[in-house]
């Protein structure tokens, strides 16, 4: 389900992104506006540098007699390359934003402005525009309407089509009061009946609006880590600005004057333009990746925090195990055979529509037992919390029951039956296996025990192994008893578990972990999960969950798949890794650029021997370094948008691997590229 919805979302995004690149090109020219550029310190310097070299192209002797040969051509070329450096950086950002916009547009399509029926306090209905709705208003929607805003059902029962958001085509039942089914999302369509809804968000503040804002990058505020990186980039830029500004008198003193154009070129080559140009694109693309996973994040901060998570608090049901327990075996007592108990179990389950009941039927049928009773003449007894049993009353007056062992014991005793001693032994045996035992009886006779097994989700153990390698601890919360919980915990490979957990335990566990300095992520859906979701550093609410839970969380999973928490952690890490890798690459590049430019411009000072790369001339060296500097930005756009592939390794293995690729690679790559460019520049005769 979840891959299907994602691919349909991607298909939609693709359709909307026709002309994405054309629009991005237009955007990258518009972004040359200084008011935009000043927000990016590194690129702002390039912008100023471009203007200076442009002026020098118009009048080469603007700052005195030019020391370069053929200054008009050289200055013109430098200006052009600098301009393209700016355009490439703008393009990277525009593409990232454009992809976000495409995604946002497909979401926005669900949010058409429509008429809403507002229920006034006196009970009269007035039709107003949905944008005029405010938090706390009460509205009425009837079959066929698009629900205009996020809200909570206060009256009525109706089926709602949420496919616009989740991609899941089966309609969902909504009704008031229930934990799970009482919240509705704006943009979904009510299919039957009518609902009274209390509006829970102001227009433009709903989940979809937040997601649109986030993926478009419109209201993107910088994340803490991005801010720290911005400071460091500004410092490096400042250092090189000082180095270059003071170089002129120093070089003049030793009679190796350097032209302003060359100084500007050297400055642009040294400041970290690669990461400076791609930084915002990386951030926007990260948000976009989260959105592609059908998760709405309310802030970039939350996505980044995912990378730092130390502990995952997970509910057993739905996350670690499949939601339902399945019948694994029949264990007869009182000398009955397996077939005997299978027959009784089958009889007791023919009206049971729960997955457990169905699994009992199919297990019995696999054992070759067939239904012998007359369905139409029999009565099904549903499970209730009071009786904790279900079963069938046969036409001949026989009562077959299955249910919690205590309950069945009581049922049998009340009919004068006796309890065989082996029953308790089997009960404990099955608990010890992590299973849930159900006793089966016919009238006052106990036939045995059905072993219901929790099915651990396929692949979950491997996921936890990966998490452990990444240094993330998993804690399982379950309502099961200790023995059962410990068995499941062992089988699933979680690090710790809390058995017989209450909702209050959740928040306790989170607080205890946080007190140790850990960052905790959890998923939840019920109203009583809301405090824990708010307490957790990353709280992911299920879209099927209550409004309260969604309000408290900082992410909402539209597919309501709790396992996705693990993917989100990966995305957070990927975001940080991409940023770090490109920063390292950008700074490592400086070594080669220095070795290309410094010996070339100071060849007159007799340090020509340092020209280890054998570059053709001063001008070709400067041009090659600058062209490399410009071209590396578009070359890295795909990586910035896709993100560096994350591998579940320990930190030290990751560091070793990435430093090899981006650190050492960043040192070596420009040497090769600049040399190649120099050969081309010299061959074409530009310098």
């Amino acid at each position, binding site marked *: 389900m979840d891959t299907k919805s994602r691919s349909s979302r991607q298909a939609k995004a693709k359709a909307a992104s026709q002309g994405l690149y054309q629009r991005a090109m237009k955007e990258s020219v518009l972004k040359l506006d200084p008011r935009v550029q000043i927000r990016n310190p590194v690129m702002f310097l390039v912008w100023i540098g471009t203007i200076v070299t442009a002026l020098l192209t118009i009048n080469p002797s603007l700052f005195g007699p030019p020391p370069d040969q053929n200054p008009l051509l050289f200055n013109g070329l430098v200006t052009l390359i600098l301009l393209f450096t700016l355009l490439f950086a703008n393009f990277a950002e525009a593409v990232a934003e454009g992809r976000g916009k495409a995604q946002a547009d497909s979401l926005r399509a669900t949010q058409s402005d429509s008429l809403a029926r507002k229920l006034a306090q006196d009970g009269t209905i007035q039709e107003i525009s949905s944008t005029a709705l405010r938090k706390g208003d009460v509205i009425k929607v009837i079959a066929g309407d698009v629900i205009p805003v996020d809200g909570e059902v206060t009256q009525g029962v109706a089926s709602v089509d949420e496919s616009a958001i989740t991609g899941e085509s089966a309609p969902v039942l909504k009704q008031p009061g229930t934990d799970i089914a009482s919240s509705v999302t704006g943009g979904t369509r009510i299919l039957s009946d009518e609902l009274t809804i209390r509006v829970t968000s102001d227009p433009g503040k709903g989940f979809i609006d937040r997601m649109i804002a986030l993926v478009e990058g419109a209201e993107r505020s910088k994340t*803490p*880590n991005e*801010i*720290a*990186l911005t*400071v*460091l980039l500004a*410092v*490096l830029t*400042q*250092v*090189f600005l*000082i*180095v270059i*500004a*003071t*170089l*002129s*008198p*120093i*070089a*003049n*003193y*030793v009679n190796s004057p350097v032209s302003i154009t060359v100084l500007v070129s050297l400055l642009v080559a040294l400041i970290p333009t690669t990461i400076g140009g791609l930084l915002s694109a990386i951030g926007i693309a990260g948000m976009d990746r989260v959105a592609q996973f059908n998760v709405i994040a309310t802030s970039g901060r939350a996505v980044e925090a995912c*990378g*730092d998570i*130390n502990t995952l608090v997970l509910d057993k049901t739905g996350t670690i195990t499949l939601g339902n327990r399945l019948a694994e075996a029949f264990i007869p007592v009182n000398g009955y055979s397996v077939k005997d108990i299978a027959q009784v179990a089958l009889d007791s389950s023919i009206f049971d529509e729960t997955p457990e009941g169905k699994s009992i039927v199919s297990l019995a049928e696999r054992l070759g037992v067939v239904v012998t009773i007359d369905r139409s003449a029999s009565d099904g007894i549903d499970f209730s919390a009071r009786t904790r049993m279900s079963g069938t009353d046969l036409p001949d007056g026989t009562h077959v029951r299955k249910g919690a062992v205590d309950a069945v014991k009581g049922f049998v005793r009340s009919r004068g039956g006796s309890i065989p001693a082996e029953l308790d032994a089997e009960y404990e045996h099955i608990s010890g296996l992590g299973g849930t035992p159900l006793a089966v009886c016919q009238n006052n006779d106990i036939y045995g025990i059905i072993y219901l097994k929790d099915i651990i989700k396929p692949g979950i153990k491997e996921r936890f192994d990966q998490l452990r390698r*990444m*240094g993330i*601890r998993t804690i399982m919360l379950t309502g099961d008893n200790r023995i059962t919980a410990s068995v499941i915990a062992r089988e699933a490979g979680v690090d710790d578990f809390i058995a017989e957990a209450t909702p209050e335990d959740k928040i306790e566990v989170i607080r205890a972990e946080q007190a140790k*300095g*850990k*960052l905790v992520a959890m998923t939840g859906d019920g109203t009583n999960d809301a405090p824990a979701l708010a307490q957790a550093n990353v709280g992911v609410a299920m879209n099927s969950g209550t409004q309260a839970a969604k309000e408290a969380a900082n992410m909402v999973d539209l597919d309501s798949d709790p396992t996705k928490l693990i993917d989100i952690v990966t995305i*957070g*890490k*990927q975001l*940080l*890794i991409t940023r*770090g*890798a490109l920063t*390292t690459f950008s*700074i*490592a590049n400086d*070594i080669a650029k220095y070795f290309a430019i*410094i*010996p070339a411009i*100071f060849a007159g*000072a*007799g*340090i020509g021997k*340092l020209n280890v790369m054998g570059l053709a001339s001063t001008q070709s060296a400067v041009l090659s370094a600058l062209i490399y500097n410009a071209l590396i930005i578009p070359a890295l756009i795909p990586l910035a948008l896709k993100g560096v592939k*994350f591998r579940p390794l*320990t*930190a*030290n293995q*990751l*560091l070793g691997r*990435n*430093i090899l690729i981006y*650190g050492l690679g960043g040192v070596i790559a420009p040497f090769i590229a600049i040399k190649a460019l120099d050969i081309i520049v010299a061959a074409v005769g530009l310098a």
Partner: protein
Amino acid sequence: MLQGWLQIALTLLIVIVITPLLGRYIAHVFLNERTGLDAILNPLDRLMYRAIGLRSMPDMTGWQYIRSVLISNFMMGAAVLMVLLLQPLLPLNPTGVGMMNWDIALHTTISFLTNTDQQHYSGETTLSYGSQVFALGFLMFTSAATGLAVGIAFIRGLTGRSLGNFYQDLVLSITRILLPISLVGALLLLAAGVPETIAGALQLKTLEGTMQTIARGPVAHFEIIKQLGENGGGFFGANSAHPFENPNGWTNLIETVAMVAIPSSLIYTYGIFTHNLKQAWLVYAIVLAFFIPFVIITAIGEFQGNPQVNAILGEISPNLEGKEVRFGWAQTALWAVTTTATMCGAVNGMHDSLMPSGGFSTLLNLFLQIVWGGQGTGTAYLFVYLILAVFLTGLMVGRTPEFLGRKIEKTEIVFASVILLVHPIAILIPAAITLAFPEALAGISNPGFHGLSQVIYEYASASANNGSGFEGLGDATVWWNLSAGVSILLGRYVPIVALLLLAESMSQKQPVPMTDGTLRTDTGLFTSITGVVILILGVLTFLPVLALGPIAEAFQLSP
């Protein structure tokens, strides 16, 4: 030749052996654990506490610590400036020296107050014994102790402790570390032949029958604190090249080891504070990885001598120009690298006469400031680089970077960045101004690449609080005194403020427990990365001036 290398290796070996011993002792002192000297020195401590009016010693916040450093330094500076300006009127002036120029007095005060000890004068003819011993000798202890206190406070903050009390740290640095070691060292120097007297200069008749004045004085104790405290301001103008300051190989060995002893041991002290000696030794290895190659290339340069001279001689002969023959190429090369690495600044030969490879190494030492580095501050800078390396590469493991379990965020980066920025500002800007007006301001003796090195060296030495001179500069002018004074002040107090605030911000963070997802900083891989980060951030900044200074000069000299 072999003898020279053996001398170098032996000295290094002694340093490495001393490191854990002294490092452990310093840790004991500042962790307030009992040391053997408590019985004798506790009364002295109490006396000093009473003298500065300190009754209780509460832990200080970052700003309180900073305020204490600045106020105490300002008071000491003002007092010493008065002494220097009024020295003709004050006692203990047997040589009868006169008034100092205001600019030289100001520069000298700033210079000694900040542990720089850059000297634009000759001690024996400009300063009275009283000024030397009570004004400058006093600052030699307090400035070294200030640096040590700041270094210790930084380590405390980094390891999650509160910063401590500046006055207590200051007193303990003096009574527990500087004073006892100086006492032993001074006695050793005395035994080896360094004079200690308050009698005036000696007048005697030479063999040729002319009268000669031989300057002398209370040299031995001045000498040892000059070395041990990374001060470097000589009693005589010729500094440790003078036969009374440094008469022979033994004194040279003692003085060289004294220079490195505290900065190297402080790395070990850090290891004890963090309970991670492995990391301490790895960091130690980074420093050695810079230090040893510097010594080697400098020594080779001096051993091979000037190629142009060799061409005339027709043989390879060591470059002994500007050197004391009793030390030769090896001990001079080792000393030159050590004194610039440790921000001591004492010299036993003319750095101006070093071959370009020596100029390159000494300049690079001054630029980097972490190859041992200054008293206390050098170790702190080392960890600032470690923090920057964690931040740059730590993102690549997919977490917010952490150092010692504490997250590196905006605040830390801002303070670390300030430290990174001060040096280029305080060196390159005044150097560029000076070189823009060479006739008016510079007074350079050798024009061209060497002259460039002289000017850069002067400001680098000032900003790094080293104090050694490339010499050859007519630096006793108002311009040099004031501009170098500004560089010294910037290079001293701005980083101290940033270091203490950085340390406080780190100490207040909730530590994050270590998991497999945490980037370990005590591995060989990470340590190597730090080395490269130091190279990129530290060296690339100054590569253009290195290229136009010593590197261009080397190519010019080579045939």
